[in-house]
């Protein structure tokens, strides 16, 4: 359960203050499948970073499963990322030189899971993403779609309540994209909350809810039909609830 209340993020660039997020209110329930959309520079990446506990808001409150995240220290955030979250990135972000099995073991290493247990769970996670026969392949020996599957296995091996994906299909061809989307749908069906950032409407169409961000604010949320300030953007012209 994610609850953001008046979350702002301000960066200082010299003397100028840049408001990456200007008061975002957002609630995402357990088991939802949400796409966050918006043009580049809209603040969607900053929002992802905050939801993903990689960054903390300048002001406002962020409750993750009832836990206030905004005032946490670096190591506390790391602990939350390790226990509750799984990340999938556009560029896969696998570690060089490690086999698929070892990639998936990494988060469990930092959670101090014993070696044999790590191996067992990593093997199971790889089987779940359909790479049961590729456990000893290095990233350079895998296709883009396969690499992204390894990354997904790594994200779900710690049994997180939330998987965050930042443009997970941005670097994939259409066939791999379809496979990865299907995988996310499968995980969501198994009860995992999935939130991902995308700017491809046909990818977003697979989700049940889309949240549009522009200039650091939520301009459209298909769940609530929220359309706060009609003058803010062109997105305001899209009528609420039309997305499939």
């Amino acid at each position, binding site marked *: 359960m994610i609850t953001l209340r008046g979350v702002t993020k301000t960066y200082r660039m010299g003397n100028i203050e840049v408001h990456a997020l200007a008061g975002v209110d957002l609630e995402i329930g357990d088991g939802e499948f949400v796409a966050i959309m918006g043009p580049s520079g809209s603040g969607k990446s900053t929002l992802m970073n905050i939801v993903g506990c990689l960054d903390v808001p300048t002001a406002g409150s962020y409750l993750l499963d009832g836990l206030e995240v905004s005032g946490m220290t670096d190591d506390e955030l790391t602990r939350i990322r390790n226990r509750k979250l799984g990340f999938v990135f556009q560029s896969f972000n696998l*570690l060089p030189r490690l086999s698929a099995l070892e990639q998936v073991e*990494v988060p469990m290493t930092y959670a101090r899971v014993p070696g044999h247990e790590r191996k067992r769970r990593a093997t199971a996670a790889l089987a779940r993403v359909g790479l049961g026969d590729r456990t000893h392949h290095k990233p350079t020996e895998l296709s883009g779609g396969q690499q992204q599957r390894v990354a997904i296995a790594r994200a779900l091996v710690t049994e997180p309540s939330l998987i965050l994906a930042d443009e997970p299909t941005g670097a994939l061809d259409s066939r791999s994209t379809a496979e990865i989307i299907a995988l996310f749908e499968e995980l969501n069906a198994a009860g995992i909350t999935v939130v991902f950032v995308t700017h491809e409407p046909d990818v977003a169409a697979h989700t049940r809810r889309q949240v549009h961000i522009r200039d650091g604010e939520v301009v459209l949320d298909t769940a609530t039909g929220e359309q706060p300030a009609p003058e803010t953007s062109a997105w305001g012209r899209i009528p609420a609830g039309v997305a499939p």
Partner: protein
Amino acid sequence: MIGESFTIALRALYANKLRTSLTMLGILIGVGAVIALLAIGQGAQAAVEQRFAFLGTNVIYVRPGFQMVGGVRTQAGSAPTLSYEDAAALAEPGAAPAVAAVAPVRMTFGQMVIQGLNVQTRIVGTTPSWTDVRSFRVTRGEFFDDEAVESVSPVVVLGYGVAQTLFPDSDPIGETLRVNAGGQSVNVRVIGVLEKKGGTGFANQDDQAVMPISVVLRKLQNARTAQGAQQVSEIDIKAVSDKAIDAAVEQVTEIMTRAHGSPDDFQVTSVQDQIDAQKEASQTLTILLGAIAGISLVVGGIGIMNIMIVSVTERTREIGIRKAVGARRQDIMLQFLMEALVVSLLGGLAGVFGGIGMSKFVEGKELNGQAISTVVEPSAVVLAFGISAAIGLFFGIYPASRAARLNPIQALRYE
């Protein structure tokens, strides 16, 4: 976690084999140099101790002081100021309670000849108490007695080496030798052979021949002091015990000052003083050598730091990924510290072998006519190895903490 960090470190180092081995080389050279140079320094110290060990540590020497020739100070010991009477005064019962035995010595160099064989050796003219002062035993025959000194009896006790040279396969006792020294010559009868003591070069205790001092003074080298007394080269004195050395030096100095009117024309030194002075010199040498080698270790450490900073920069993205999936600051810190430590310890280990090999290599090689001796002390090995570990930690901390402090978002975006 330490085990995992170790594995990660090994893999990262293995992935950059050339870079790793060059970094290790810096530490290898440093540690090897420390061990080899300390071994040479320690060897020099051990040689000093060995050289003086057979002289006896409670021996004191009285030697003449400097001589002024036309305003120039000549070598110590060259002034003709010590007399046979000085020795007699020191040996006077009760005169110097801390003195156990006194032996006047007249020393010269000469040739000893017998049946086509000859040898150049040191000729020592002294009294029977010399055996007591210098702790010499006679293994064959006997030493001469006071009677022989009184009666200027032409006898000789050969050093072990001299006896070996002149009498390779016969018994020297009772044989008569011809001694040529200072333009004079005299026939002497061999009455004894000294025990084998060893020593090299000038300090070779087996390369000498001992005769009654009266024979040397009257028949070979009749030297006189300015006052017309019979001149001796030095007076060897034995203190009653090691503890009495300082007291003996004081008493001898007092008696000699009274006899000569001033303390300026003679010197009183103990073997212990000489050992201390030589030891101090070789200790200074050891420290100096160690310090020079230490500099190369520091340079090696800077090499580690340099390469670790490069490694952290190169792996910024990896650090970002690790942090994103749950690596805390201390985990990243440990990973890079371990890497620095493994490089320096491997380099240190190779350096230990390199240093020992180097010491073995120079052992016995001649430098300025002196054989180099080396002693690899276990403590030096432990020290060098410990220092290499400390250097790995010290120079690894900055790059590791730089890695640990990286912001995960920026690190993930790093190309």
